[in-house]
Structure formats: C-alpha cells, structure tokens
C-alpha cells in the first residue's frame, strides 16, 4: 500500500471518529430540545422571551435574528461540506 493510501485510510478513520463525536452531540441536543418542547408552550415561551426587552429584541425581531443566523451558519456549513466532499473525491493523479 502506498504512503498516500495509508494516510487516506487513517484520515478516513479520523473523520469517522469526529463524526461519531458529532452524532453524540446531535443526540444530546435533540434530547434536550424534546424535553424543552414537552415542557414548553411555544406561544407562551415567545411571549415570555419578549417581556422586559426593548422593542428591537421583542418577538418577532428576536426570532428573525435567530433564523437569519441559522441560515447563514447553515449555508457556511453546507458550503464547507460541498467543498470538502469535492476535495475528498478529487483525483490527484
């Protein structure tokens, strides 16, 4: 086996371990989200989060910041994934 192939195998193993860590994070996050969803009424939560806040942070402005952040971060991660997969599949030969 060439040195490059060996490095690629080790690299894939490292990616797999990193992905396992992320899956664990995802599971914990979903668990906590489900717990919150069971306990909370969303419209009540939105009202509570608005109280004692200036106008610029009352719902829906607050949720607008959250959604735009999510979209921007999501697009960044998707961009990284697309470039990452393209790089991984490129033929160096």
């Amino acid at each position, binding site marked *: 086996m060439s040195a*490059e192939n060996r*490095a*690629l195998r*080790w*690299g*894939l193993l*490292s*990616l797999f*371990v*990193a*992905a396992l*860590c*992320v899956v*664990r*994070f*995802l599971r*914990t*996050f979903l*668990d*906590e*989200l489900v*717990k*919150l969803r069971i*306990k*909370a009424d969303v*419209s*009540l*939560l*939105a*009202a*509570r*989060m*608005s*109280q*004692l*806040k*200036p106008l*610029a*942070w*009352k*719902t829906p*402005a*607050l949720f607008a*910041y*959250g959604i*735009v*952040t999510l979209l*921007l*971060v999501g697009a*960044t*991660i998707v961009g*990284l*994934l697309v*470039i*990452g*997969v393209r*790089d*991984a599949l*490129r033929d*160096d030969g």
Partner: protein
Amino acid sequence: MKRHLDLVLVVLVVSISILRGLFWIGVYPALKIADEPSHFDDIQYRAEHALRAPRAGDKVINPVLSPTASRELSTLWAATQHLWQAGFTTRRHAVPEERTLRDMASDPGSRVTNGQSSAIVYPGFAYTVATIPYLLFSRASVLVRVLAVRVASLAWGTLFAVCTFFAVRWTARDRSLALVGALFAIFQPLAAQQTVAVNNDAAVIALCALLFVGQLALLRRPADTPSRGWLILLGCVTALALDTKPQAWALVPGTMLLVLRALLASGRRRSTQVALAVGVASFIVMRVLVHLICDRMAPGIAAASVVAHPSIGPLGFAKFLWDLDDKFIDYLFSTGWGSFCWLDVHLSSAWQDDLHSAALVLWIACGIAAAIAWLFPDTRRFWDPGPVAFSFFTAATGFMVILFAEYYARTYFLAVRAVQGRALLVVLPAATAFFATVLGTIVPARLRTLLAAIVAIGIVLLAAGSLVTVVAYEYVG
C-alpha cells in the same frame, strides 16, 4: 484573488458574529449574566458622574447589587428577578415594569449611584469605553441602556472572532480551519455568553486576541527586523488589556519572549533597539494615559494588589501544583464551557460527558499529530512550526497564570475556587490555533475541509444546546 477570499471570509465571520450576538443578547434576560448589575453600576457611575472609577468606601461591597445602586437599576433588578420561571403570569409581550422604567429615565434622581459595586476592584478601561453606548441612549429606559452596553460587548466579541480567524490562518495556513476556528470563537458556549454581557470580560478577551495576533505578526517577520508598527500596536494593546482585567497578564510572557528573540537575533543593531524602545515607550505612554482617564485606584486596593504575601513564592506554587486535585481541574473545565446565568445553571451532565469524550479524542489526536511530525519530518507541512510552538506556549502560559491566580487567592485571601474557567478565554485564540493545526495534521490535505465541516457542525450543535439550556432554565423552569 486569494487575498480577496480572506476578506470574504472575514466579512462572513463578522456577519455571523453580529447576527448570533443579537440573538443571544435577546435570549438572556437583562442583568442575568454573572455580575451584570455590578458592572452596569460602575458604568452608570462613570457615565452620570465622572469618567474615572468611583472612590472605594470602607463598607463591605455586596457582590450582587449594591444597596446604593441607582433606583432605576434596583427596579430593573427586582423586575428581572420577578419575571423568571413561574414568575411569568401573562401571555402579553410587554409588562407594566417596562413603562415604569421608561418613566424613571426622565428623572435624574433615579440615576444617582455612588458606584460601590464589586466591579470597583477592576481597572476601568472597559467601563469607560462602555459609557459611549450608555450615553448614546442616555434618554432611553435603563433597559435599553443595558442592552446597548451588551451590543458594545458584541463589538468586542466580533473583534475576538476576527482575531481568532487570523490566529489560525497565520498558524495553519488553511482557510477552512481558520473559518472553523473563528466559528469556535463565536459559538464556544462561555465565549458566546461573555461577548453579549455587560462586563469587562468581552473587552479583555478581544484585546488579548488582538495582542496574540500582533505577536504572531511579529513572529512571522525575521527576528532581527521587528516591525515598528506592530511593536507600537503590541505596546498600546498590552496597556489597554492590563487596564481591563488581570488575566491579560497571561499574554505578557509571550511579548517578553518575542522581545528577547529580537534582541538576541539583532545583536547591537541600532534600528532594532530603536524599534523595541518605541514599543516599550508606547506601552508606558498608553498605560499612564489610560490610568489617568479611567482609574482612581483606592489606596487600600492598590496596596492589596502590590504587597506580596510572604508565603507566596515559586516553591509554594510548585507545592500547590503538586497537591492540585482533579476536582479543581474539573471545576475549571465545567466553568470554562458552560456556567450560565449566575452559575445557577450549567450545561447538563450529558453535555459534560460528550465534551469530556471530545476532549479525550482531541488529546489522542495531539499524540498522533506529534508522532507524525516527529516520524515524518520531511512531509510537506501546511503549518509553520514557529507560530504553532508559540500558540502552545501562550495557551500553556495562560493556564499556568490562571492556576497561579488560584494559588494566590488561596494563600492571600484564603478563598478557594476564586478563579473560574472562563478566565481562560483570553488564550482561546492560541489554543484554537494549536488544536486546529493538530486536527489538520491527522488527515491528508484532501480531507481537511471535510473535517473542518464536521467540527463546525459539532460546535454549532453545542452552542444551540447551551442556548436551549438557558431558555429552559430562565423561561420554563
């Protein structure tokens, strides 16, 4: 074109940082992040009465909210304590307390404070700067002024993220890793909280990040021809950071190392000596200037900060390190990752377990990366040895400075756990640069961006988890 790409990434980092911060600012209830009332009291004193620090009285200072704080701040504190968990009784989006606070804003008497809050022990640069957003909204409700000061902290936080981007970029020379490094600075749960709070932490971590980037810039140049511009920047930023919070001392050994390197490399070259003298002079001038504008150190506090305890020394510190228990390291770890809202709520034990697992994987990766660097020294590297070693040195020095602060507190004040893990945020860019290099080393170049994407997903999930923890605690209970 490639330089242009860096600029695009910086704009992306700035955009994400600001939007994320605006969201986080709204999620945390006013004054509920640790010590916000006392920091705001100090800022209010400077904005309403004098730019310099209040004179310390002889009474014991209340660590939460001074009984002599302004009426409007006390009213807001009472309201935010009441509107919490089961305290919410209505589905309306506004509460009567908002009108009360708005009415109070037009009464100058409701703003009077003598500034006797626990923040009085800190140097004042960050507080004096924070009077700018305060004064911009001086006629608005105290609620608006509190959140305006939080936005100023967000500006510091954005500087912190941009500096972390360059710290990784100049260490690992990989754009995807630099982007993930910046995302880590934005979303690390405690950094995300501290950079949207009324405090002096946001300023000190941003100034220390800028200091570290300045040090790296100096390191990238030949040792015998240090840049005069960067030296002046280092001098000024060091002075400002030291006048913000004591943990800025963690970055000082790095600067001294670089100065020593320049002196050894240049011999007696006059131009180098002049450049170093200019750097030192800029530090002294800025230190004196900022002290005159922002500080009025009370004699008692000044004495406490300079008088050394007879039992404090290298041997005592070595013994402290030898006797250090795992519980304190665990405490630093947990308070460095997720102690929110006045330390009453932490990331759950499930998150802590996940973080411990990820940390273990990272340490194993460090071992593998070190083995690769040692066994295959001729491999084409994507990282520069100098900046990587310097990043490790800075991160390790920061950790030792924090441990020394705990040792000092235990010996001098007989206080245990006086230092929290969030103090380590001042060396987060250095640690990020080092660990990003490690992660990049264990995979071949073609898999590096994919690894960066996977790590980015993990960072964002952790941040989202921390936010769910805060929302569940504050608004649901």
